[in-house]
Structures are given as structure tokens and as C-alpha cells.
């Protein structure tokens, strides 16, 4: 195997494994902060035990995320040194800012939250929980800034053999930063909330720790429902950004070979092939004109197809298409599940719906799978370029 392929595999394996843990901790950090706030406000001892329990799960996940995160940062130098030299003027700053503005905050106050329970007052403990949540959410921001710059570079010009920063804020808030950041963070909330909801459901099914389980179910389910809805809003926003700024990727995601006015939305079909001539004929579920409408708000708007790009610049179509469509499918399943859950919770009947509780346990891995598919869509769809600069 050649070095490029091996380096790619190493990067992909590290990212995929690493990202399991931040997405859990970003979500749990918010939930713990909310639980700490309720504990501080009401003095309810059940919220105290609950936040201690989830903080322990947080800590186990956090440490794996930190340990693998160092590999992520160092890999740009170790394995991608020509890339590092080419973009260092722009790309290093967000990584450094992530340390300064996010990791110090998160790790410092986590120490206080985990080991300082007897050394700090209730107010400071709640504050520490919010600082951990803020730190983890900010760290996602800076790493998304770096990755989004690879997707849609801005605020630079090429001087000789390297990219040179010309406008810091344009580089930070490049076209894809905010849509992708909001989508990533809402997905992480969903991940943490599904974990909390699923484990609480398991406790209820086995009739254990009922106080903590009920508190966790109420909080987890509420955040999972709101988060799943936000995930759709931010996902829609993110897809439109891709359609506007990364048209080749958008066409690969949708499996659209030819530019079409009033393009149909493919809900399900056999996966498209790299060569349009081999494209499968088969059953498909499509909504006519819907892609044009969702993307541009008009049933007749043209959507750019792959035919507008030289074939050697196409991303691998089948993986991009499959990752994207399955992500959306999973998102729909998750939102549907939480819609029922929220209704049962509102009707105060959730504990009687043992079938739903069992589904909630089984659904714990779904957000993780969807998140991995989302990353695959973003990263595979970006090929063959490391960055479009």
C-alpha cells in the first residue's frame, strides 16, 4: 500500500474514533450543567446524585477524547507536513485558539467539578459545570473553523507556494463555518441526550434508581426532542450552504448526474455509481421537484448536477450518497422516536409505554452512527481535494 492511502486511513481512523467521545461529552456537558442548575435552584438531592452519576460517565468519555485529540492535532505535522507548510499561516491559529479558549476552560473546571465537590460551594459548582459545557462547545467551534476552512476556504491569497492570511474574520467565518458548527453542536446534544434518555429508560425498565432515572428521563428526553428538531433545522441550513458553495459535493450527495430544473428529491434508491453509464435502473422513492424547492425555495429552480464538473473532480459518489441518505434517514427515525416520547412525557404516561422505553435503550447508538455518516458525507464529498485552495 502506498503512503498516501495509509496516511488517509490513519487520519480517518483517528478522526472517526476520536469524534465518538467529544460528541458524547459536548452533549453530556450541557445536560450536566442544566442538572446542576436545577440542583442549585431547588436543592433537590436527586439532582445532586444524578449530576454526580452523569459526571462520572462524562469523565470516562472525556479522558478518551482528550487522549485521542492530541493525535488529531499532531497528525497535521507528522503525516501531512506539506499541507501544514502550505496552509500553516491560516490553519494553525484555530488549533492554538482551541487550546487557549476552550481546552483550558474545559479541563480546568472539570477538575473542580470532579474532585472539588467538597471544596466548593453550590454556586461555584454550578458555575464550573457551565464552564465545562462552554469549553466543550467552544472547542467544537475552533475545530469546525479549521475543518470548514478546508471545505470553503476564505480570507486568504496564494503567495508563491503557500496560502497567506488576508482577513482573519473572513477565514474564521468562512461560508460553511456557522452552518456546520450549529449542525455539529445540535447533533452532539442529541447524542448526549439519547445516551441519558436510553440509560434512564433502562433503569425504569429494570425498576432501578427510580428517582435519578425519572429526572434523567425528563431532562434527557426534553433535550433529545428539542435537539433532534434543531438538528433538522441546522441540517437543512447546512445542506443549502453545500448547494450554494460546494455544488459538486451537493450533486454527489444527491446522486444528481445532470443539471435539472425542478430536480426531484430522492428519499431512497439504489446507490448511484461513479460512471453515469452504469447507473442502476430500479425502484426508487422520489418526491418530484422537492430538491429544487428545499434548496432554493422554488419548484422550478435548476440544481447543478455532476455534468458541470470534469469527471476527475467528482467525489466518490456512491459512499457520499449512501452516507448522506442514511444520515437523513436516521435523523428522521430519531426525531420520530422523540416526538412520541415527548408526547408521552407530556401526557405523563411515558412509564407505561414499555415498548417505547425499550426502543429508547436500543436507540442509544443511533446518533453516533448518524454523526459518523455526517462526517463521512462532509469528508468524502470533499475529495479529491484536501482543501479547495
Amino acid at each position, binding site marked *: 500500500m502506498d503512503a498516501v492511502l495509509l496516511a488517509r486511513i490513519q487520519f480517518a481512523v483517528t478522526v472517526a474514533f476520536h469524534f465518538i467521545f467529544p460528541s458524547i461529552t459536548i452533549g453530556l456537558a450541557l445536560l450536566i450543567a442544566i442538572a446542576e442548575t436545577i440542583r442549585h435552584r431547588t436543592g433537590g438531592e436527586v439532582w445532586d446524585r444524578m449530576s454526580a452519576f452523569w459526571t462520572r460517565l462524562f*469523565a*470516562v468519555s472525556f*479522558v*478518551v477524547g*482528550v*487522549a*485521542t*485529540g*492530541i*493525535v488529531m*492535532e*499532531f497528525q*497535521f*505535522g*507528522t*503525516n501531512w*507536513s*506539506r499541507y*501544514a*507548510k502550505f*496552509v*500553516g*499561516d*491560516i*490553519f*494553525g*491559529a484555530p*488549533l*492554538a*485558539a*482551541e*487550546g*487557549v*479558549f476552550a*481546552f*483550558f*476552560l474545559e*479541563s*480546568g*473546571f*472539570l*477538575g*473542580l467539578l*470532579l*474532585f*472539588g*465537590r*467538597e*471544596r*466548593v460551594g453550590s454556586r461555584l459548582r454550578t458555575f464550573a459545570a457551565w464552564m465545562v459545557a462552554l469549553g466543550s462547545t467552544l472547542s467544537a467551534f475552533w475545530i469546525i473553523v479549521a475543518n470548514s476552512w478546508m471545505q470553503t476556504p476564505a480570507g486568504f491569497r496564494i503567495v508563491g507556494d*503557500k496560502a*497567506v*492570511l*488576508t482577513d*482573519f474574520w473572513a477565514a474564521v467565518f468562512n461560508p460553511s463555518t456557522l452552518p456546520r458548527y450549529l449542525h455539529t453542536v445540535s447533533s452532539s446534544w442529541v447524542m448526549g441526550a439519547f445516551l441519558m434518555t436510553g440509560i434512564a429508560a433502562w433503569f425504569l425498565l429494570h425498576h432501578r434508581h427510580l428517582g435519578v432515572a425519572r429526572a434523567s428521563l425528563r431532562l434527557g428526553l426534553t433535550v433529545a426532542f428539542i435537539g433532534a428538531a434543531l438538528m433538522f433545522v441546522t441540517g437543512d441550513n447546512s445542506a443549502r450552504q453545500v448547494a450554494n458553495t460546494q455544488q459538486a459535493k451537493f450533486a454527489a450527495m444527491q446522486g444528481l448526474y445532470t443539471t435539472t430544473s425542478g430536480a426531484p428529491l430522492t428519499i431512497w434508491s439504489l446507490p448511484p455509481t461513479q460512471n453515469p453509464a452504469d447507473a442502476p435502473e430500479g425502484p426508487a422513492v422520489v418526491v418530484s421537484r422537492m430538491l429544487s424547492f428545499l434548496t432554493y425555495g422554488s419548484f422550478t429552480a435548476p440544481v447543478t448536477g455532476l455534468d458541470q464538473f470534469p469527471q476527475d473532480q467528482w467525489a466518490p459518489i456512491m459512499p457520499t450518497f449512501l452516507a448522506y441518505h442514511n444520515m437523513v434517514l436516521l435523523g428522521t427515525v430519531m426525531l420520530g422516536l422523540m416526538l412520541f416520547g415527548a408526547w408521552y412525557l407530556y401526557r405523563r404516561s411515558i412509564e407505561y409505554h414499555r415498548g417505547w422505553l425499550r426502543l429508547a435503550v436500543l436507540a442509544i447508538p443511533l446518533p453516533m452512527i448518524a454523526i459518523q455518516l455526517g462526517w463521512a458525507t462532509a469528508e468524502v464529498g470533499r475529495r479529491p481535494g484536501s482543501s479547495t485552495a
Partner: protein
Amino acid sequence: MDLATIWFLLIGVLLVGYAILDGFDLGAGILHLFVARDDTERRTVLNAIAPVWDGNEVWLLTAGGALFAAFPPVYATVFSGFYLALMLLLVALILRAVSLEFRSKVEAPAWRATWDVIFAIGSFLPALLLGVAVGNVLRGVPLDAAGDYRDGLLGLLNPFALLVGLLAVAMFTLQGASWLVLKTEGAIAERSRTAARLGWPVFAVLWIAATLFSSQDAPGLWDNFANPLAWLVPIAFAVVAVAYPLALRTRRELLAFLLSSGSIAGLIGIMGVSLYPNLVPALGGASPSLTVGNASSSDLTLTVMLAVALIGMPIVIAYTAFIYSRFRGKVRAEGHGY
């Protein structure tokens, strides 16, 4: 002073911060098998570093990011050139991080003994590997026409670099011992005191040996000392280092820890003075040395980064100091902890 020189200094400051802070928890990890004999003592040692080690490691992450941002070719050349050594460092840091967290979760003695050994190795290896890497940077490495170092892992294992590697291990061990003397009491504190007393002469001898050896192996490091002002740094280091055993003997524990930290700052200061304006001196080969002048990012990037540092670091230092103050005093095995 130009921006690139400011960043040379600031990366030095980040490295000093890392070496002082992570230094004491790496050192505690190297020592813990020797100064803590049973499970309760081990837990006491771990509790002495538990709330803060993670934040300490962020200094390394931030220094890496700052190096990437301010001097991309240095980051690219050193990290890709020292590939296998760095991968080993990363694996060691991963295992070390999880051994701390995982150890406490299961009470079986075999489980805990395994993680204790992994924790010790995972603390020793980073100290050694970082020292060897710094030793090679100080000595200079051959750079080919593309500015790459290509002699692999074996090329890094030269006597001078190994000497600096051992010096780093001694320095971190001394720092760890000083921290444990400050934070623990009873048998652990006494054993740590012994370790510090025995470790100091080893550290001093290794430093003298590395210094003498550098005049043969890396004479370029002495160029800046033609300027008499440059001698202030090694003199300050020597004063602090000599005061250390006195503070230890008179049982001024906080002072001893601060002097140990000061000697780390002094040692890295000496390295900075010796190196400037080089970042990676070229040892033969087709490319010139990477210097503050030819390897820095654009002025705009360095200015933005300076703003990030000037806004961010005072806040970081303020709340870090606050968190340390919350955990001041001696630790025990009981209560919330490992």
C-alpha cells in the same frame, strides 16, 4: 523586537508552562511506583495530581498549535521528521491519560497493578522522548533540499540527544518529587524527599555533562554567549538550582517546588538563548537552518495570534491559579478522588 521574535519567546513561555506543570505530574508518575508502596499510598499520589493533570497537558497541545500557527515549517519538519518518536510519545500519553482514569474504576489488585505500571511507563517515556527531541533540535538536524529531515528514528539516537533526554527525565522527576513533598505527608513525603535529595545531584551532573558535551557536539549553541548579557540566564539558573537543595533541607516545601520550577524555566531559557535566532539549525544538508526570520508566518497571522494570546492567556492563568488555590493543602486517599 519583531513579531517573529515575540513568538519565539511566547512559544518558549508555553513550553516552560508545560514543563513546570505537566512536569510535576509526569514526575509523580515516574516516581509513584517507588514512593507509594500500597494502594492507599498510590491513590494519595494520584489524588495529588488528579484535578489538574489534564489542564497541564493542554499546555503541550497549545504549544503545538502555536508552533503550527507561528512557525509552520518548523512544525512540519520536526513533526514529520521525528515521526516514529512522536507516535511513540502519543501512544504513551494516551495510555497514561487513561490509566489515571481507568485505574480507580475496578478494585481488583491485578487491574490496579497493571495500570500502575502503564502509568509509570507512560510518564517516563514522554519525558525521555521530549528530551531526545529537544536535544536533536538543539544539536541541529540534516535538512534535505525540501527542508525535510530524513534520518529516521536511529538518526535521533545520538549521544548528545540521549544525554538531553536523560536530563529531561531527571528534571521532571525532580519536579514531581518536589510536588509530592509539597502535597503529601508521612511516608510518601519522606520517600519523595529522599528522591529529591538523590535526584538533584544526578540532575546537576547531567546538566554539566550536557553543557560540556555541547561545546564539542553543537558548538553553534555557544555563539550567542559572546554577548555578556546572555550569561545572565545561566547565572540565574545556577543560583536557583543551587538554592534548591538548601530549601529542601530546611523543609521549605513551597519554596523548594518554586525553585524546582524556576530551574526548569532557567534551563529552557538557556536553550532559547543558545538557539536564537534558529528554531531548527541545519546540520549540513541542502537547506539552510529554519530561523525566526525564514520560518515565521505572515505578520497578520502573528498579530492575530498575539491578540489571542494577550486576551486568552491572562484569563487562563487567572482561573488556573484560582483552581489550584481551591486544591491547596495536603491530599489524602479518602474523599472524592481516585
